[in-house]
C-alpha cells in the first residue's frame, strides 16, 4: 500500500536538502495548479511505497500568503497519511510554532530535528516527544544521518490515522468544542472550528454557516477577546508561543547566552555593515557577472557560449547537417528548413546554455548559503520605491548580459507582486544581443558616439523605474500587500547537491523551452522568410525582398508611421523588428539581407552603414532603436516570462505592456524630438505624443491604489484574490 507523506517545515530549515537526500533523483518538479509556487514530489529511494510530497516552506498556516494557502489546502483536502515536519534545531522556537499548527490537523506528525549537529544546546528528545505527542527523530539532512530511522517512524505513524492536538487554555478549548458541535462532521473538525474561531475568511467562505450559527460564533469569539483584552489572532498566537517557551524551558539546556554573537552574526557584522555592505555587494555581483557573462579570460560562461555559438551551432552542427543533406539528397526546401530554420533558430537560443548554467551555479550558491536574503536586506529601500524587491537587483543585472536568465532569476523573489513586476520590467534592460542594434545606428548615423550606448542603458533603467512606479499603483499589483518581514537565515556552507539540483532544474527548463516554443516560432518565421510570391506564383524564394515576411512588413509598416518609419525604410524596419523576435541581433542581419549585402556582415553591420545612413535620419534611427530595445523581447525571453508567470494572462499582459510602452516612448521621442529639431512638422501625432506624455506623467504621479492598503480588512482577502 502506498503511503503519502507530506514534507513540511519553515523556509531555510533544510527541507530541500532533506528532500533531495530522501528521494535522490526520483523527483517530479512542477507547479501547483494555477499558481507560481513550485511543486515537487518524489518517492523514498529505499522504499518506493512512500511517496513524499514536498510542500512550500512556510512559517504558519495562516490564510495570507500563497505558499501557506497551497500547503494547507493540500493538508486538508488531500489528507496525506503522515506529516513529516522538519524542524531546524538551531531555531527551535519559531520552527515549533508551525509544528503546533500541524498537530491540529488530525494527521500523524513525525518531527525531524535537523541540524542537531551544529547546535550546542542539549535537547532532551524523549521529553520533547512527550510535549508534542509525536515521535521526534534526530537527523542531519546534510550528512544524510538518521534518515532511515526517520522514515521508519514515518511508516509506523502513518498507520495511526490520528494525532493528539496541542491544547489552548480552558476557555478557548470550550469555545472550540462549542463550535465543533455547530460544524458538519468531518475528519478535521477541530481544525475547522479553530479557523472559524480565528475568523479565517477563506474557511468561513468554504463552510457557509447559517446566520444564527455565525452570531453564536461571534459571541464566543468576543467573550474570549474580552477575557484576554486582545484580538483573537493575537491571543491564539501568543498561547502557542507561550506553550513553546514552557516546552523549551523543560527540554532544552541553553549554552549560549541570549543575543550573543554567533559565527553567522560575525560574518554579518562585516557583510551587512553600514559602510562595507554596498562595496561588498558590488564586488560579489561584479565577480559573478565577470565569470558568467564578462569578456575576460576567466569568463567561463562567455567562453562556453561563444564556443556554442561560433563552433557548435556555427560550424559543427551546420557542417554535419550539410553532409547529411548532401548524402541523402534532401530536398532543398527541407534542407533550408533544417539549416536556416531549426538549427539557426534553436541554436541561437541553446548557445546561451553555458552562460545560464554558470550564472545559476553562482545564484544557487548565494541562495543556499543565505546571502540572497542579505541582498534583499541591503537593497530593499532603493527598490521598493519602484514597486520592486531588493532582490530585483539580481535579475536586472543579469539581464544586461541576457534577459532569459535574468527573468528566470526573479524566482528567488518571494512576494508575488514584486516578482511579477520584476519579470515585466527585466526585458527593458539592454541585453548583449541588443548591442549590435545600438552599434549599427551609433556607427551609421551618430558617428560612433558612445553616448548612444550610454543613453540606451539610461533609457532601459528609466523604463524599469518608470514602469515600476506606474504599475505598482494599479489595483492588480496593489491589491496583494506583500509584507516584507523576512528571516535572515544563519550563513552555512552551500550543499553541493542543492546547488546542482537547482542549477539543473533551471537549465533544463530553458533547454526544454528551446525544444518546444522556440522551435515552433523559428519554423514559423523561417516559413515567412523563405516563401513568397514570384511573378504571381507562390514559391520558395531566395531573395528575402520577395518573401511573405517582406509582404507582411509592407502591409504592416503603417502601424509604425507615427514613429517616423516612413518611405522605403518603413517595411525594412518592420521586417527587421519581426526577425528581432528570434534574437535581437537578427535585426542587424536582416538589414544586411534587405539592403542586398551579399557577404558575411560584421557584428555591428559596418558594411551597410552608408545605405542605412541614406534611409534613416537621426531621429528616425533613434525612434527605431528605442522601439527595438524596449518592445517584446526575443522568443526565448518570452518563453522565460511564460515559465515564470505560469499564467497565460500575465504572460500576455507583460508582452503587451512592453510593446505598448515601447510604442508610446518611440512615438513621443520621434514626434516631440522631431518637432524641436524642426524635422517633423506639427501634426495630428504631435497631439497624440503630448497626450501620451501627459498620460505617463499622470500615471507616475497619481495617488496609487496602495494608499488604501491599511484599510483593507481581513475580509477583503477573498479566495479569488490569491488565485488571480
Amino acid at each position: 500500500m502506498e503511503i503519502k507523506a507530506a514534507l513540511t517545515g519553515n523556509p531555510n530549515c533544510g527541507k530541500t536538502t532533506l528532500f533531495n537526500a530522501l528521494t535522490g533523483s526520483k523527483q517530479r518538479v512542477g507547479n501547483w495548479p494555477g499558481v507560481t509556487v513550485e511543486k515537487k514530489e518524489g518517492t523514498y529511494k529505499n522504499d518506493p511505497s512512500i511517496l513524499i510530497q514536498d510542500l512550500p516552506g512556510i512559517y504558519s498556516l495562516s490564510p495570507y500568503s500563497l505558499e501557506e494557502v497551497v500547503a494547507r489546502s493540500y493538508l486538508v483536502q488531500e489528507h496525506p497519511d503522515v506529516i513529516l515536519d522538519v524542524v531546524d534545531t538551531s531555531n527551535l522556537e519559531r520552527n515549533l510554532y508551525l509544528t503546533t499548527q500541524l498537530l491540529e490537523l488530525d494527521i500523524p506528525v513525525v518531527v525531524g530535528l535537523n541540524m542537531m549537529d551544529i547546535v550546542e544546546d542539549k535537547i532532551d528528545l524523549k521529553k520533547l516527544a512527550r510535549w508534542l505527542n509525536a515521535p521526534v527523530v534526530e537527523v542531519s539532512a546534510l550528512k544524510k544521518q538518521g534518515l532511515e530511522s526517520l522514515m521508519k517512524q514515518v511508516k509506523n505513524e502513518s498507520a495511526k490515522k490520528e494525532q493528539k492536538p496541542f491544547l489552548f487554555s480552558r476557555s478557548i478549548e470550550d469555545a472550540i468544542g462549542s463550535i465543533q458541535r455547530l460544524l458538519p462532521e468531518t475528519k478535521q473538525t477541530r481544525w475547522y472550528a479553530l479557523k472559524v474561531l480565528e475568523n479565517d475568511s477563506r474557511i468561513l467562505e468554504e463552510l457557509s454557516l447559517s446566520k444564527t450559527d455565525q452570531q453564536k460564533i461571534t459571541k464566543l469569539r468576543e467573550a474570549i477577546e474580552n477575557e484576554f483584552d486582545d484580538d483573537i489572532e493575537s491571543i491564539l498566537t501568543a498561547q502557542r508561543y507561550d506553550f513553546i517557551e514552557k516546552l523549551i524551558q523543560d527540554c532544552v539546556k541553553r549554552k549560549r547566552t541570549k543575543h550573543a554573537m554567533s559565527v553567522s552574526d560575525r560574518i554579518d557584522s562585516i557583510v551587512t555593515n553600514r559602510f562595507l555592505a554596498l562595496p561588498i555587494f558590488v564586488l560579489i555581483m561584479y565577480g559573478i557577472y565577470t565569470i558568467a557573462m564578462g569578456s575576460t579570460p576567466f569568463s567561463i560562461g562567455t567562453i562556453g557560449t561563444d564556443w556554442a555559438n561560433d563552433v557548435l551551432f556555427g560550424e559543427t552542427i551546420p557542417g554535419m547537417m550539410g553532409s547529411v543533406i548532401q548524402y541523402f539528397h534532401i530536398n532543398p526546401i527541407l534542407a533550408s528548413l533544417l539549416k536556416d530554420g531549426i538549427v539557426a533558430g534553436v541554436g541561437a537560443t541553446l548557445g546561451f546554455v553555458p552562460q545560464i548554467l554558470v550564472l545559476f551555479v553562482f545564484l544557487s550558491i548565494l541562495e543556499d548559503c543565505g546571502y540572497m536574503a542579505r541582498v534583499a536586506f541591503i537593497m530593499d529601500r532603493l527598490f521598493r520605491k519602484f514597486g520592486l524587491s531588493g532582490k530585483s537587483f539580481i535579475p536586472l543585472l543579469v539581464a544586461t548580459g541576457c534577459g532569459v536568465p535574468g527573468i528566470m532569476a526573479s524566482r528567488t523573489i518571494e512576494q508575488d507582486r514584486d516578482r511579477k513586476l520584476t519579470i515585466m520590467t527585466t526585458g527593458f534592460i539592454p541585453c548583449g544581443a541588443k548591442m549590435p542594434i545600438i552599434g549599427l545606428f551609433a556607427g551609421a548615423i551618430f558617428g560612433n558616439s558612445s553616448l548612444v550606448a550610454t543613453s540606451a542603458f539610461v533609457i532601459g533603467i528609466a523604463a524599469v523605474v518608470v514602469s515600476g512606479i506606474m504599475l505598482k499603483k494599479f489595483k492588480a499589483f496593489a491589491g496583494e500587500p506583500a509584507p516584507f518581514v523576512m528571516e535572515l537565515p544563519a550563513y552555512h556552507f552551500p550543499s553541493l547537491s542543492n546547488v546542482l539540483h537547482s542549477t539543473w532544474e533551471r537549465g533544463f527548463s530553458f533547454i526544454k523551452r528551446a525544444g518546444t516554443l522556440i522551435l515552433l516560432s523559428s519554423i514559423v518565421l523561417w516559413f515567412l522568410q523563405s516563401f513568397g510570391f514570384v511573378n504571381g506564383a507562390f514559391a520558395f524564394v531566395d531573395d528575402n525582398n520577395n518573401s511573405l515576411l517582406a509582404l507582411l512588413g509592407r502591409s504592416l509598416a503603417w502601424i509604425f508611421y507615427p514613429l517616423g518609419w516612413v518611405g522605403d525604410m518603413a517595411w525594412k524596419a518592420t521586417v527587421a523588428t519581426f526577425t528581432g523576435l528570434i534574437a535581437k541581433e537578427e535585426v542587424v542581419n536582416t538589414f544586411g539581407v534587405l539592403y542586398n549585402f551579399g557577404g558575411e556582415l560584421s557584428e555591428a553591420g559596418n558594411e551597410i552603414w552608408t545605405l542605412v545612413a541614406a534611409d534613416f535620419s537621426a531621429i528616425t534611427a533613434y525612434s527605431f532603436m528605442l522601439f527595438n530595445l524596449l518592445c517584446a523581447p526575443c522568443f526565448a525571453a518570452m518563453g522565460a516570462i511564460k515559465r515564470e508567470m505560469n499564467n497565460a494572462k500575465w504572460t500576455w499582459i507583460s508582452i503587451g505592456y512592453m510593446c505598448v510602452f515601447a510604442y508610446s516612448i518611440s512615438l513621443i521621442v520621434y514626434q516631440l524630438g522631431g518637432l524641436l529639431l524642426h524635422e517633423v512638422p506639427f501634426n495630428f501625432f504631435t497631439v497624440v505624443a503630448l497626450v501620451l506624455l501627459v498620460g505617463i506623467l499622470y500615471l507616475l504621479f497619481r495617488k496609487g491604489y496602495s494608499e488604501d492598503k491599511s484599510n483593507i480588512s481581513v475580509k477583503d482577502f477573498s479566495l479569488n484574490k490569491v488565485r488571480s
Partner: protein
Amino acid sequence: MKTLDTCKPNDTIIVKKLHGTGAIKRRIMDMGVTKGTEVFVRKIAPLGDPMELNIRGYELSIRKEDASKIEVE
C-alpha cells in the same frame, strides 16, 4: 507611545502591543513577535531601512513602516 521603528541598534526592548490589521500583523506575529517578547535591535540596513532584529534566537528583518505598528517599552 514608543514604537519599534524609533529604537536604535543594540537596544533591548519588550513588545507591548501590536497595532494594525490583516496580513502584515499576522505575519509579524507568526514570526514570533508577540506581546511580552524580548527584542534586540541588531542593526539598521545601510540605506537606513529595513532594520534587523534578534528575536527568539534568530535574525528577523522588518521595514520601519511595519515596525512603527509595534508598540514597545
